[in-house]
């Protein structure tokens, strides 16, 4: 491992100094070792141990995990119609939630960053932040109550002339998009705030109309921020099993399959195999996100 201090530190005057100050690699090692023991060894190790069990078996009689290497869990996942449907449904829900959140968050963030007065801006940031402190469960439950047969959405829907979705996948998408919306607004807002007004003015001076400026100047600048927000909306939706239980009716997502196999069925190998699906999806997603520079915006 080669280490170099960023700049300057090494060429400080040669006076008597402690070994710690002289050796960049020593300081780096002392700094990086504790977090790496925690994340690199314990956390990555735990993930690795989990995925090893995906290649093991469950003893059909005792329910214990037996270390017999095979691909049966993955084969079952691949060949079973039910699990394929659930996997694609989950992916579809996560994607839809992300798109809905982007569409709602962008105008709000643009208004907050570029239209609102500094005073209003502060108030709006607080207004967007506050719901994050209300319990996730209670908010999901509030939607359950609103979407119930005699709930508030029934009245609202009648006034607008539409049917309420009731419990199901639509309700799941609405509730998840509601829960994760602040995670999308805040990075986009932060990204837009960094965009200097002078760039917008320059774009206008050079003859770009509003829509054109938005597409050619604003969007490229906030794109990494949008990707950063989408990491959260996408990943949080991908692993959710609670919201779909509260408002999703009988529908299942991947999280439910994992949860049920851990709990009732006690089949850790199969649960681990199912869990590889969101992990692989997220790793691909993170890899793509890194190219946009989004990870610096997280």
């Amino acid at each position, binding site marked *: 491992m080669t280490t170099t201090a960023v700049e300057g530190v090494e060429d400080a005057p040669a006076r008597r100094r402690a070994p710690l100050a002289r050796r960049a690699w020593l300081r780096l090692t002392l700094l990086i070792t504790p977090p790496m023991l925690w994340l690199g060894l314990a956390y*990555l190790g735990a993930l690795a141990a989990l995925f090893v069990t995906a290649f093991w078996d469950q003893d059909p009689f005792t329910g214990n995990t037996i270390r017999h290497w095979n691909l049966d869990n993955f084969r079952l996942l691949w060949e079973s119609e039910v699990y394929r449907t659930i996997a694609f449904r989950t992916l579809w829900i996560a994607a839809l939630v992300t798109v809905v959140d982007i569409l709602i968050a962008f105008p709000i963030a643009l208004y907050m960053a570029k239209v609102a007065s500094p005073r209003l801006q502060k108030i709006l940031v607080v207004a967007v932040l506050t719901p994050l402190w209300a319990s996730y469960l209670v908010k999901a439950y509030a939607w359950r109550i609103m979407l119930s047969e005699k709930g508030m959405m029934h009245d609202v829907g009648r006034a607008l002339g539409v049917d309420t979705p009731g419990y199901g996948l639509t309700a799941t998408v609405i509730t998840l998009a509601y829960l994760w919306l602040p995670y999308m607004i805040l990075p986009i807002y932060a990204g837009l705030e960094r965009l200097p007004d002078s760039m917008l003015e320059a774009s206008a001076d050079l003859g770009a109309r509003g829509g054109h400026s938005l597409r050619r100047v604003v969007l490229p600048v906030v794109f990494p921020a949008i990707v950063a927000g989408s990491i959260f909306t996408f990943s949080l939706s991908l692993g959710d099993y609670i919201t779909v239980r509260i408002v999703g009716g009988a529908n299942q997502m991947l999280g439910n399959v994992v949860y049920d196999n851990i709990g009732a069925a006690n089949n850790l190998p199969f649960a681990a195999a199912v869990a590889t699906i969101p992990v692989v999806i997220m790793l691909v997603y993170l890899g793509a996100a890194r190219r946009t520079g989004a990870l610096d915006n997280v």
Partner: protein
Amino acid sequence: MVISPGFKWVLRIATFVALAVIYVPLLLVVLNSFNASQTFAWPPEDLTLEWWRRAADSTGVRDAVLTSIQVALLATLVALVLGTMAAMALQRYRFFGRDAVSLLIILPIALPGIVTGIALNNAFKTVFGWNLGFITIVVAHATFCIVTVFNNVIARLRRLGMNLEEASADLGAGTFATFRLVTFPMLRSALIAGALLAFALSFDEIIVTTFTAGADQQTLPLWIFNNLFRPNQAPVVNVVAVVLILASVIPIWISQRLAGTTEGLAGR
């Protein structure tokens, strides 16, 4: 500004409609904490203070709040130490595997909670041979809280540069004296911002907690989940939620006082 007046109005209306939709469910929770009907009949026919009285008397709620605060404080403390160390290492040094390390720090929060949950559950039980309990919750929470501190500290370090620390070293201060007298005071508000986020993240976490809590430990989200579907308890849950919303004024007030000094993850 180049945004046309008409478009400004579109944005203004969109924002306020969206905010209204954001707050309707919260207001409903507030209303239902006074709703005499246990099934939250809409519109409410009668109002009562009964649920507030019951919540105040509930030892279950009090214990759960206490557990959650203890877990969140300890997890935040661990995250502060590890997050700051990782941020200083990654910002100040270029080394092989640096990108991988920064990805690794984000990983616990970027992977779905259920994956982190079952991975840690499995590791605690089979690899370490621990029983699930209070400590396992703290370890699990600290793992995904590191990133909030890390992001705030590294953004601050990036902005500060090294000049003051170099000056301190040139004036003869050792590594630790420089950290204590120069670096730490400059990081303080970033640390507070990161700590608030870490605390919030831990306080509301349920999925990872479900898999890492022992049978005797009940954090507030676990208590809420266990009581949400009980007709007798659901109204009390609403009261707890209202109190949480009201209590959120404190951290938000602190972070507003630090406004302009928080970056990265601004208030995630």
